[in-house]
């Protein structure tokens, strides 16, 4: 285990760039909580589809709303949905993977076949099915994406637990009388936190993309509220008349995904 120091972070370009990009995005989101240049939902008929200017640094959309304000608001929504998704997906996935990997036998077989079945579903399709049953809204979106993310985490964690559980130190702990639950969560899980952390960041990535994709399909947050995917979907009609409208939210998505990817790679190399 290495000490975290500023110098070491700077030396690793992946980590440094990742932190820089995520810092910028997070700064924009946090500022957006308290202040946006304009009300993100306020329409203005006279300022429709304006280009990049000092007044509107990302232009305005087809209803005259300030795109920068909407991006600030929308990236918060996107990030929160991605976070919710990862909390559900990584949480459930870790528990399922750890328990099945540790106990093995029938539980393992049954759980893994269910996971296989879930895996066979494209996650977007699965989310669409859940949304169509429970209705449209961001809660449903988080739950459905979360469930769709469970299998990959369960797989990763299970593999790691299988690798760890026959190690001498686990047998040693068993000999001392450590119970099963304590064994899984106190003795085994800390050993896989590096793998888990980098797969959470990669998962974050996929969650941002999935949220954008689903909102683009119209099942995410509803107008007039913004999310990055929603904005892309609204903007696509005006792609040629006002390219800045579609490019600005797109660039923010790319930045988020890049930032998470760099961070994940950096953490992987850190281990």
């Amino acid at each position, binding site marked *: 285990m290495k000490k975290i120091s500023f110098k070491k972070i700077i030396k690793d370009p992946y980590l440094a760039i990742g932190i820089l990009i995520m810092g910028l995005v997070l700064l924009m989101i946090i500022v957006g909580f308290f202040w946006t240049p304009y009300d993100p939902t306020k329409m203005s008929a006279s300022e429709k589809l304006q280009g990049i200017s000092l007044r509107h640094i990302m232009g305005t959309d087809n209803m005259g709303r300030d795109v920068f304000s909407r991006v600030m608001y929308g990236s918060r929504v996107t990030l929160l949905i991605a976070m919710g998704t990862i909390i559900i997906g990584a949480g459930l996935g870790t528990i399922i993977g750890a328990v099945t990997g540790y106990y093995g036998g029938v539980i393992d077989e049954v759980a893994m076949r269910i996971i296989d079945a879930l895996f066979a579903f494209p996650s977007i399709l699965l989310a669409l099915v859940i949304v169509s049953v429970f209705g449209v809204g961001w809660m449903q979106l988080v739950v459905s994406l979360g469930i769709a993310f469970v299998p990959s985490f369960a797989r990763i964690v299970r593999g790691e637990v299988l690798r760890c559980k026959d190690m001498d*130190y686990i*047998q*040693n702990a068993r*000999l001392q009388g450590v119970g099963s639950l304590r064994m899984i969560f106190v003795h085994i899980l*800390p050993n896989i*936190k590096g793998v888990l952390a980098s797969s959470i960041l990669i998962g974050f990535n996929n969650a941002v993309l999935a949220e954008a994709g689903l909102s683009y399909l119209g099942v995410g947050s509803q107008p007039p509220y913004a999310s990055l995917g929603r904005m892309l979907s609204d903007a696509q009609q005006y792609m040629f008349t006002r390219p800045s409208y579609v490019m600005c939210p797109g660039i923010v998505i790319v930045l988020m995904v890049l930032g998470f990817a760099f961070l994940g790679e950096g953490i992987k190399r850190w281990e």
Partner: protein
Amino acid sequence: MEKETVLKVSSLDVFYKNRKRKLFSKQSKKIQALFDVSFEVQEGEVLAIAGESGCGKSTLARAIVGINKDYEGVIWQKYGDPQMVFQDPYNSLNPAKKVGWLLEEPLKVDKKRKWTKEERQQRVKEIMEEIELPLNMLERYPSQLSGGQRQRVCIGIALMRNPKLLIADEPVSALDVTIQAQIMELLRNLHKKLGISIIFISHDLRVVYQISDHVMVMKNGRIVEYGATKDVYRNPQAEYTKQLLKAAGITR
């Protein structure tokens, strides 16, 4: 001085299940690893178990401490809760935990009594003194220790709950010669000081000679020779023991 028996093993057969059967084949074969093993360990005695790799030494150890429960026969223990030191100190310490945490863990999960935080820390300090490590190592991770230091920590963990029987499964085989001598010295001192019984498993008859009162030589899951260490080394009965002694360069 009347010595009491702390461990009595009679006609022990140990089996191994073919655990990986799910992956490659469906039939579950049982492999018998030990055949009709019987012996006793007296209080405060060091019994050495010697033999080549794969002869069932570790299997026997695992059966005694209860890791492998698939056996027939009787293992009777006076005190219970025997502890074990594993062969490879690089694998037997949890790499994600600090030394201090690792030493405290046996007390946290002790079923016999509750230890308060102060008691635990007090005990950790005592043990660190006995395994001759400085207290500042409590804050280190196993990866920051040398092989010998790790094996000391392993011995310390095993001794935390004051076991009456310690099984050392090839505790020095993974270490180089000078460190081996230090660890042997440590074990000998602890044995003298604490009066615990030790089952010392090794393939190296030279190491065995240094520490043991009795020797048990095993081959292919059976005991081929048992006796007081000096008698066995001076006058080996079984052909296999003679071979082993010759290989170790002890007999003329």
